[in-house]
């Protein structure tokens, strides 16, 4: 990480839901192959920020986005092929959403949408992604059973496998551990440490300790504004740049 290369550039990003402004013009960069933590209380705009990044915000009719987000230097809102853009960004939601399809079809969904139809190629991707998400050994004998029948932790790993299936450059995890047990959380955290060699990871989390364990740099977002962005050692030290950060991280916020 000697010469960090900018992977995502956010400039003056402003987001309104109708008359209510939820993100007030924030700017920051995310470097390639880093784990970028975003912490902050509920309603501070973390999830909205992710939705701007892969433009699923387009489906909220009253949302209005200003400013720019550049991915590899290209403005995501100018990107003509929004579907290809979304495939560059893997997204894992807080609660696991197993689509009502078989385990195999869940993972093969995105490649199929992208036009891949050859069974042999799909087989390779499905196995590879399930292995990456540390789920393969548990499900390899029942790939054709419904993904929704897996346990919560397994389903969350299935959604991670699914997010990896379109070979994203960026993996966004939105409070992925909210519905799973600590042991599974640790397993997934190990997975993330491996995955960072291939992609940039944005980790939105309510658990400040998780950001401390994983993130290279951490951004503290509060009420739609950046309070502080720095190396995690600094954010979680006794002496972060902002008093508010210290209070939040140490649970004396308020």
């Amino acid at each position, binding site marked *: 990480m000697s010469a960090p290369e900018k992977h995502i550039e956010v400039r003056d990003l402003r987001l309104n839901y109708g008359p209510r402004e939820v993100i007030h013009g924030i700017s920051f960069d995310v470097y390639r192959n880093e784990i970028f933590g975003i912490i902050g209380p509920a309603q501070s705009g973390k999830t909205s920020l992710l939705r701007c990044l*892969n433009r699923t915000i387009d*489906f909220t009719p009253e949302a209005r986005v200003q400013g720019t987000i550049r991915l590899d230097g290209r403005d995501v809102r100018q990107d003509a092929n929004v579907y290809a853009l*979304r495939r560059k960004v893997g997204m894992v939601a807080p609660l696991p959403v197993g*689509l009502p399809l078989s385990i195999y079809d869940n993972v093969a969904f995105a490649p199929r949408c992208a036009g891949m139809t050859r069974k042999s190629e799909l087989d390779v991707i499905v196995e590879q992604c399930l292995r990456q998400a540390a789920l393969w050994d548990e499900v390899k004998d029942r790939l054709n059973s419904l993904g929704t029948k897996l346990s919560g932790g397994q389903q969350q790993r299935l959604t991670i496998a699914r997010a990896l299936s379109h070979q994203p450059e960026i993996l966004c995890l939105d409070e992925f551990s909210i519905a799973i047990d600590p042991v599974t959380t640790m397993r997934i955290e190990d997975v993330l440490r491996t995955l960072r060699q291939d992609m940039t990871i944005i980790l939105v989390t309510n658990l400040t300790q998780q950001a401390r364990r994983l993130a290279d740099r951490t951004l503290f977002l509060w009420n739609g504004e950046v309070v502080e962005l720095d190396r995690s050692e600094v954010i979680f030290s006794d002496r972060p740049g902002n008093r508010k950060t210290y209070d939040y991280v140490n649970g004396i916020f308020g």
Partner: protein
Amino acid sequence: MESNSTSPNLAVRKAARPGWALAGERTLEILIHLCGISAILFVLGIFFFVFKEAFPVLGHEKFSLSQFLFSQEWYPTSEVNKRYGVLAMIAGTFSVTALAMVLAVPFGIGGAIYISEFCGAKTKETLKIVVELLAAIPSVVWGFIGLTVMSRLIVKYTGAPVGVNVLNGGIILALMSVPIIVSIGEDALKAVPDSFREAGIALGATRWQLIWRVLLPAAKNGLLAAVLLGVARAVGETMAVLMATGHAVHIPHSLLDSVRTLTANIAAELGEAPVGSDHYRVLFLTGVLLFLITFVVNLAADFMVRGIRKK
């Protein structure tokens, strides 16, 4: 108001609920129970009474069940040789229903998808109201439209000798089934959680891919129910098909042939058949047959749904 100051007393009063309150609750419980099982009683009751009227003819020497089912000769009022074959009417019912479904299912599911996924909030409200209105039009009005408007159009554009035929009945039944399929299908699609949509979109699915690969599989049970209610309406519909199909006892060879359906036959002839006569009893037997058809359709649907679930 007074209970505010005397909260200990309130607790005591609560603990000692009067006997009549408990009895009332018990009565309500029994009533609810009755409401629940009444459906079973009604189905059994209807089957019993219809079958009771039909049963004596089964033992009759001049009547044979195979003739009833496999002959197309329907001469219930012949002086010399009464024959009761309903094959032509079975064919009539199936042809009209099949045509109606071929037209109504794609339209109905398409309409449901449009209302649920594509149109704006305002259009959605308007469309839903109009569709519900369409479902509320009495069947005799539909029959009237078939008899006058549709039949003239059919004669004009197809050159058929008569305008009341399979095509006419099928279109009318399709028009009657579409609103049901649309409104129940829309409910089914609406019941699919938004998180599925978000997940699909985030995986780079286009709108169409999302519908095809996520929403339809997720809503398939509800959509199947919508289609089956449409079928049930088409099979059971009487007045509209009586007016729109021409009422000719005849196995159809083309869409432009007139037919008679099982239901229309009962409606038209029951009034003239002397109570207790063979004719009367055969008409009731036709009712039993209809009952069995719907039963089989429902059962098949049940198995399909269960098969889907198991997977």
